[in-house]
């Protein structure tokens, strides 16, 4: 499969940023954030070019902002002022009167080379100041990404953190009866648009995909009928894939290291599973654990110094953290029940996990030193968290009740804003991409 070449150019910010003190700002670390009222009038089609496109772009921006839970987009029918140019100061009183705090004004024009240019200004309606301005040029059929870039810009302008809207999700698309399920790799934009199947599902079930942090590449496990499952690399742009080494035992639970040069995974030998690391350039394999217990689901800290993993060496599944060379493993979970699938936050401050306790499953987070555990979700089966690249949102899969098919859900780190992610059919094992280039 060929993906469109990613061709957004960030143009110069065309007005200087205002003083920092005046800024409206959302503190997204607080547990009870009142959504900020934002007005997003349809982006103006310059010279009546592409009027429908302006509306489409606005729709994507509004949906991104709304889904984040940090913004409440005011109904366009309430807007008083009709903007005619992104370069004219808005009448702020007209936006205050509808209780907007922030106005996102934009326009879209066609450039002589056949591309589109999307220009945006973010205004603080109360201080009458511009919070920021940005412009993107891109091929016309890439307009959704331009819209996501605008939403990311708004998010960063108001929270101070990187946005996560211009990202993708790879996950497992499931069809057929449970006893004979077809499981295929599927990729989509973060908002559910542009779903594409990556594997045909004929000869194997695809499981547990993870994005490379540095390349348009996925690692996943292929589960076969008649030989042990194996870890594969899949190039998203070319569709080419290759088995990661040739082993008699099963290899599974792959995950890239944060620098993208190595893959951590479990390998099974004689029925026992341990954690290994493979250097991609040389295919050199290093054993990191050697324990009669099951060691799996490895995840490396962003600074590359530590590795978290699941082990049942103490009797039940718990999360351990060890040095990157495999030394000094230390158990960090001590609550009741079973802790599995640790995933280190891209910010480094937390590890997300799946916890199983008394017939229920939870997604939670804990500090790497074992303190500060918080449970964010609960259901019949909540499994397999993945972090948004800014470390503020988690996605996971859920079977809401016995027998219910799996679906994708997202939740804020605060435990708020639990939402189902729109996908075509049963879906599991989501993996969030890094920010797109």
């Amino acid at each position, binding site marked *: 499969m060929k993906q469109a070449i990613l061709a957004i150019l960030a143009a110069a910010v065309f007005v200087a940023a205002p003083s920092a003190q005046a800024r409206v700002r959302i503190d997204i670390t607080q547990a009870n954030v009142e959504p900020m009222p934002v007005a997003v009038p349809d982006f103006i089609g310059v010279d009546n070019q592409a009027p429908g496109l302006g509306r489409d772009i606005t729709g994507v921006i509004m949906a991104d902002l709304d889904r984040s839970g940090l913004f409440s987009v005011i109904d366009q029918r309430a807007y008083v002022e009709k903007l005619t140019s992104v370069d004219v100061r808005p009448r702020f009183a007209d936006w205050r009167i509808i209780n907007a705090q922030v106005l996102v004004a934009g326009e879209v024009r066609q450039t002589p080379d056949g591309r589109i240019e999307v220009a945006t200004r973010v205004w603080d309606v109360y201080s009458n100041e511009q919070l920021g301005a940005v412009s993107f040029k891109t091929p016309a059929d890439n307009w959704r990404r331009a819209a996501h870039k605008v939403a990311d810009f708004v998010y960063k302008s108001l929270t101070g953190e990187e946005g996560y809207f211009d990202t993708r999700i790879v996950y497992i698309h499931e069809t057929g*009866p*449970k*006893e*004979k*399920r077809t*499981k295929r790799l599927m990729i989509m934009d973060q908002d559910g648009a542009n779903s594409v199947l990556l594997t045909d599902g004929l*000869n*194997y*079930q695809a*499981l*547990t995909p993870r994005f490379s942090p540095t390349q348009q590449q996925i690692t996943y*496990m*292929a*589960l*076969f*009928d*008649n*030989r*042990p*499952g194996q870890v*594969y690399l899949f190039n998203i742009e070319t569709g080419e*894939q290759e*088995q990661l080494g040739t082993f008699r*035992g*099963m290899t*599974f*639970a792959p995950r890239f290291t944060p620098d993208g040069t190595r893959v951590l995974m*479990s390998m*099974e030998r*004689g*029925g*026992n*599973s341990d954690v290994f690391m493979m250097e991609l350039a040389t295919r050199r394999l290093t054993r990191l654990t050697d324990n009669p217990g*099951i060691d*799996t*689901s490895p995840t490396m800290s962003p600074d590359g110094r530590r590795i978290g993993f*699941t082990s*049942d060496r103490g009797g*039940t*599944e718990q999360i351990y953290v060890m040095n990157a060379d495999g030394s000094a493993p230390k158990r960090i979970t001590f609550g009741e029940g*079973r802790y*599995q*699938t640790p995933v280190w936050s891209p910010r480094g401050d937390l590890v997300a996990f*799946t916890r*199983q306790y008394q*017939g229920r499953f939870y997604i939670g987070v804990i500090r790497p030193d074992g303190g500060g555990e918080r449970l964010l979700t609960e259901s*019949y*089966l909540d*499994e*397999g968290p993945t972090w948004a690249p800014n470390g503020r949102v988690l996605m996971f899969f859920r079977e809401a009740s*016995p*027998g219910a098919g799996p679906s994708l859900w997202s939740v804020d780190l605060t435990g708020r804003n639990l939402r189902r992610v729109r996908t075509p059919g049963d879906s599991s*094992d989501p993996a969030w991409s890094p920010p797109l280039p």
Partner: protein
Amino acid sequence: MNVKSSMKLIGVVGLMALAAACASKSSTGPDVAATGNTNGGVTSGAVTPGSQEDLEQNVGHRVFFGYDQYSLSPQAQATLQKQADFLKQYPSVSVQLSGNCDERGTREYNLALGARRAEAARAYLVSLGVDSSRLTTVSYGKERPIDPRSTEDAWSLNRNSTTTIVNVGA
């Protein structure tokens, strides 16, 4: 990736359908299910000796495990003893042991747990004198339940090691 022949695929599907039909007859607990699958030692005249059908109807092709366990119960050991006798009776037969788990665990851990279950069955057969070159293992984790329901009964059935004939000799 290797492309498996369509013949092989149909064969596997057929076996799985058969297995599901078998399993749905049993109801309570792993050990009862194990006994149910052995069919009480009644021999059917229409079955080809040494075939998968023979194994399933007259020997028992599945052993069952407790929750998050991979130790072999006395019933599981008895079934494996019969499998060992079967394999000695038909020395050209090779089998695959596939380890399976119920849905009450994560994918990755269950893949590891399924491997332990298949290995437990394999090691026991070897201890009973079956040549290890005739035995291969695979783990399906929680991905191939034989009973699709989300009940204790179904989970008991889905925690198993299943023996499948992969080769009836050259």
